[in-house]
């Protein structure tokens, strides 16, 4: 009973009120390094075809699938476009910048949730392409991510008058009242 737990800095990224649990779970598995990406599978199935199904060029790793792949980049661009967030290019960079911005304000909540939801949809898209042979469509993917975010943040009714926040609300077509400060 004398176990003392070491806190991990990335836990608040997924375990919060606005992130849908299924997205949290996939993000958690990703942080544990246990998502069944091709490079993980190759460890016990050496003969597996390990090229990323989304771009068909590089080996599929966690880094590649979610950040380096052209497909993922366009999706991130679509999702992050309005907020002036820098494009994530490395897993570590992004998580570090997310961990740094772990405050309770609206934008950082949005940031965390956007991250988890996008990760979940990218993973889902990859699985659908791989197992159901469905076709790729970036626009639909971005749309479904935005829709999920809209549902999650639809309870907000008042936002502070900050350009980033207001722009983000307009983009999601949220019906909010902008407070003058």
């Amino acid at each position, binding site marked *: *009973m004398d176990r003392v*737990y*070491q*806190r*991990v800095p*990335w*836990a608040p990224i997924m*375990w919060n009120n606005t992130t*849908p*649990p*299924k997205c*949290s*779970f*996939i993000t*958690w*598995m990703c*942080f*544990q390094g*246990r998502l*069944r990406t091709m490079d993980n599978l190759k460890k016990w199935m050496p003969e597996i075809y390990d090229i990323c199904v989304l771009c068909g060029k590089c080996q599929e790793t966690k880094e590649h699938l979610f950040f380096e792949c052209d497909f993922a980049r366009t999706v991130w661009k679509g999702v992050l476009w309005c907020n002036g967030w820098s494009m994530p290019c490395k897993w570590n960079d992004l998580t570090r910048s997310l961990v740094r911005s772990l405050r309770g304000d609206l934008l950082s909540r949005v940031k965390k949730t956007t991250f988890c939801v996008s990760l979940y949809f990218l993973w889902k898209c990859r699985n659908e392409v791989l197992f159901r042979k469905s076709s790729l469509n970036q626009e639909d993917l971005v749309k479904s991510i935005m829709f999920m975010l809209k549902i999650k943040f639809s309870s907000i009714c008042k936002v502070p008058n900050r350009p980033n926040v207001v722009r983000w609300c307009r983009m999601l077509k949220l019906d909010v009242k902008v407070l003058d400060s």
Partner: protein
Amino acid sequence: MERIQWHLHHFFKVSGLQPNVAKSSIYFAGTSEYIQRDITLLLGFEVGYLPFRYLGLPMTSKRLSQPDWAPLTQKITAKLRHWSSRLLSYAGRLELIKSVLRSIEAFWGSIILLPSACISEVEAIVRNFLWSGDASKTKQAKVAWHTVCTPTEAGGLGLTNFHLLNKALILKHLWSIVVGKETLWIRWIHSKYLYLKEGRLGLRV
């Protein structure tokens, strides 16, 4: 015995509540058959034998064995066999485990110090359910169980370690004995098994 019956009757007169003969039974320990027969004739209850179940929990004078804890595993698997719990996502299953299964376990665990074989059996069911969606189907676990059973802040999924939970819940009883909580059973334990000497509790041998 007549006194007990008189009290029961008195209670019936005051409250209108009567013991149901069909649903009640009487348990003997260290009484001769002769006296037992007299008492059963007087009260009209059936004689019961250990082990029996009381409030869903097994009552036995011996160490708990596999058939004794079978109701626990049955109850848990029955919850998981329902169609609505078979169609859940990982996160949904996790939530079901956290809110429903862990509370069934905690109910047992708060009263009995369960044998580790029992805990392992229950944990196997829960683990199978989380990773494969079926209590009896073993699938390769994606993350080690001890990682799953760590708090979310420490990188786990926030499930409780049932071995520890069981011990902690039982320690709660020990705590009430030590602080001398004002209940009947604690007074009984204090008078029968414990003595207080110079501010320290000792066990009467």
